[in-house]
Structure formats: structure tokens, C-alpha cells
């Protein structure tokens, strides 16, 4: 019998947060544990994170709308090998592309955590869980919604 492997998470030290005009509202939302997504206030399309204009109508009237944080795993990988030493204690972890409910054209790259690896698949339903780092940065991560 093999033991059940649980998805861990990458270490906090892996990256420092840099923001700019068009990404800061997203990260500020994260701090408040609210998933805020950029949407064009004129034509109502979702806008790519970091984009300065809506590509559909070239408007800069970008509004930050609250999302429930529910979605599905669009694709994922299980990282088992620590390519850099700082990952040593963090494998296995699961980077995943998350397709958010009702959102077209804007996926999140995140992690599925605290879940048996064998339960994770393309199409798995997930919801957001917040990870607060010591440096004041909060990250959205995802857990499986159990049926």
C-alpha cells in the first residue's frame, strides 16, 4: 500500500511581489481576501491582468469586480522534482490553471493545495483559499470542492 500524497505549496521566498498601475488593485484585493478581476466598464468583457486597455474597445475604464473564487482546474502539473534548492521541502506541489466560474478570457495561474494528488484532475471543481505571507502579500490558492 502506498501512502496518500497531499499537494503542498511552493515556498513564500520564491518570489517578491512587484506591482504596477494595472495589477495593484488585484493584489490589494488579495490582501482583503477578495478576488477582484479587471472588467471593461464600457463593453463588459473581462480584461487580461496587467492590461492597460480593453482589447475589445480600447477603453481604459477598467473596473475591478468581485468574484466568488469558484472555478475548475483547466490544466495542472504535479511538480515532484525541486529544480532549485529552495523547493526541497515543498514538493510535491500542484501548479494549476484555474478557469473561474462565468469568466471568459481570463484564467488564473495558481496552486491546488491540501488535496490528495490522486483526486486532482482536469475539470475538478475548486474554490479559493487565501494564503497570507509574512511580508503582507496574500495569495489566492485553491482547494477541491468535495462533492
Amino acid at each position, binding site marked *: 500500500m502506498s501512502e496518500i500524497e497531499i499537494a503542498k*505549496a*511552493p515556498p513564500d521566498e*520564491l*518570489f*517578491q*511581489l*512587484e*506591482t*504596477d498601475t*494595472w*495589477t495593484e488593485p488585484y*493584489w490589494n484585493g488579495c490582501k482583503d481576501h477578495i478576488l477582484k478581476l479587471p472588467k471593461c466598464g464600457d463593453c463588459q468583457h473581462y480584461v*487580461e*491582468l*496587467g492590461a492597460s486597455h480593453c*482589447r475589445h474597445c480600447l477603453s481604459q475604464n477598467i473596473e475591478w469586480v468581485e468574484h466568488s473564487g469558484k472555478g475548475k482546474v*483547466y*490544466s*495542472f*502539473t*504535479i*511538480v*515532484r*522534482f525541486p*529544480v*532549485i534548492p529552495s*523547493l526541497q521541502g*515543498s514538493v510535491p*506541489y500542484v*501548479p*494549476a*490553471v484555474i478557469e473561474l466560474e462565468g469568466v471568459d*478570457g*481570463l*484564467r*488564473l*495561474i*495558481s*496552486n491546488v493545495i491540501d488535496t490528495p494528488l490522486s483526486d486532482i484532475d*482536469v*475539470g475538478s471543481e475548486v474554490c479559493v483559499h487565501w494564503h497570507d505571507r509574512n511580508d503582507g502579500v496574500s*495569495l489566492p490558492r485553491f482547494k477541491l470542492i468535495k462533492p
Partner: protein
Amino acid sequence: MKIAKQAAVVGIGSTPYYRRGESHPQTFNEMICKAVIAATEDAGLSIKDIDGFSYYSSGTDTPLLMESLGIPEVRYSSMVTSGGGGSVGAVQNAAMAIATGAANVVVVPFCMQQPMGKRYGSIMSQIDPTPDKAFFMAGGLVGPGHFFAMLAKRHMHQYGTRREAFCEVAISTRENAITRPQARFRTPLTKEEYFAGPMIADPLCRYDFCLENDIAGALILTSAERAKDLKQRPAYVLNGEQGGRREWGRAIAWMNMPDEYFASAGYASIAEHLYGDAGITAADVDVALLYDHFSPMVVMQLEDFGFCKRGEGGAFVEDGNIRFKGGSIPVNPHGGNLSEAYAVGITHMMEAVEQIRGTAINQVKDAEIALVTGGPASLPISGLLLSR
């Protein structure tokens, strides 16, 4: 591009193929100079004939090379933006410069040399943090393999592609490397070994990853007319294409590609222009040098370039179609990035030239048209057709 056969690759040259980090204490520019000298000798040209430089993936400093090589005047110096995706776009640029008369003899040099103690495989962790990178760094995507694993996983989900297909890419590529003296891996790879290989980023195991090497290589191009009187049989630039669709865009760095693009190599539009302007189809291609940084991306490029239908790449590969011996479209007869060496596309370009000359070690019989691709990556990506 509508300048078919107005320019040709007339010379190729390289340094020895070193294991990563083992080319020191030679310097980066020294390595490039050695490759450029070798390529001009191969062509039967003088180094002083060079009046153009065409780069990709960061390139290098033109006046530095002019100084070391005694090149009197430069009339063209340009670089394709982004990384390995634009690799063969540099050959297209060189051909365009020659066809328009901007320059007479253009060199496409490239050097990959890893600093001692650093690995390309974790390159994302070595770059300065920026607002756009935060979105993937937060997810722990630190090596290129982590990104491409997710494309492969989606392809498996969407089309039922099996790891057996990735295995066949690795095995057939290794088979080709065995006869190549400079190849890094020259022992056969079995299916058992492949499946016993450690999983790095599911579904990618050790054997799905390319090598890491220190290599400088160079191609010399000149006009078709001048090429006739030189030492080697010319490899004419039949067509080149660089760019790609917005839907593919930043590709792995944003993961927002629509369904029909996500599980692909992003090359469908490149293939359409490349073949269309040349007036050929996939059936006319005799040998394919496909950028194989990760084995699943070979499967997806085969679909994009029309060697099989979308979604059928796995079965196509498993049926033996990419084998050097007996395959319907031999892929990477030099052993590719997976088994021969990895230097961001330059080795594929040099092999394509040898295939067209008819001098390759694993020569595809009567090869008249060779396809070479840049890496599936952020735009621009690029494709090239060389012909007799």
C-alpha cells in the same frame, strides 16, 4: 515572405558541443567568433565579406564581433524579439536583408553558454521580479518544464494523448543521436527506462526534457547568385515566417489561450503562411527539424504543421511516423534537443542545411525541402523552409 530562393545558407560552423558550463574559460564572444570563422571557412568566404548580423534570443554586441573579427563595415544588424521562439526568424531576416540589397553577406550567430553554477532549467527564478511575472511565480512555476507540462496535460485530457507518444519522441530521437559523434547521449533508450525515469513535472519525466549545453553556432547567408560559385551546395531560403496569433500571445506566461490553441504549439497560423506563400503543403516536406525542448511539443507541432490532424499527433507518433528509418516524416535526425544537444535552435538550423546539402550523418534520402521551427513559446515564434 515572397522572396523565395533569393538567398541561401552557404556556410555553417560551430564550436565543439560542451556540457553545460564546461566551455569556460572561453568567453561568450570568443565562442561566437570561433563559430563565425568556421562558418565562413565552410562557405569559402572571407570573414571580411560579412556586412550583416541577424540575431535572436538576446543576440550579442555587433561592434564587439567586428572588432575581434576585423569586419570593416556593417550595413545590417537586427534581432528577432523574445527568446527561442524567434530563432529561425533570424534566418528569415537575413534572407530579407539580402533580397532587398540591405546587405550582401549576413551571419546568424548564436551562443548558449551557461554561467558556472546556474542552470537554464530554473531560469524563471533567476530573473528580476516584475508585475507580469508575479502571476506565474506565485504558482511556483520556476522552470520551463512546469509550464509545458500543463500544455501536455491538457492535450492528454482533450485528445486522449498517452505518455507512450512522448516516450516514442524520446526513444526515436535518441535512436538518431547514437550515430552522431558530438551527441551528448549515445546509448539507446528503452521504453522500460523511459517509464522508470523520475517524474519531474507530471506528465513530464526526465526523458521528456531537453539537455543543457554550451554551444556557439553560426549560419552564413548570401544571395542565390553568389551562392552558386561558393564551396557548398546552397540551401535556399524557400520561405520564412515569424509572429503568431494574439490567441497564443504570451502563451505559457499567461495561459489564456482559447481551447483550440492551448493544447497546441501555437504554430497553426505560422504553418499556413509558411506553406501558403511557398506554394507547398506538409506532404512536400522531406525532413522536419522541430524544436524539441520538451517531447510533447513535438507532438503538438506535428499537428500545427499539418503532418497529421489536430488531436491525432499522439497516435501519429506512436505509429512510427517520425522515425528516421521508415517514418513518413523523419523528425530531428540529428538527435534534437532531447539527445544531441540544446542551444536554442541553432543545432536544428545547421542540421537542416546539412540535410539539404545531402551531407548529414543521418541523411534523409533525396531531401529537397526541410522545415525548421523555433521553440513553441511567447510570440514571436517562427518557421523556416530550406530547399535545394
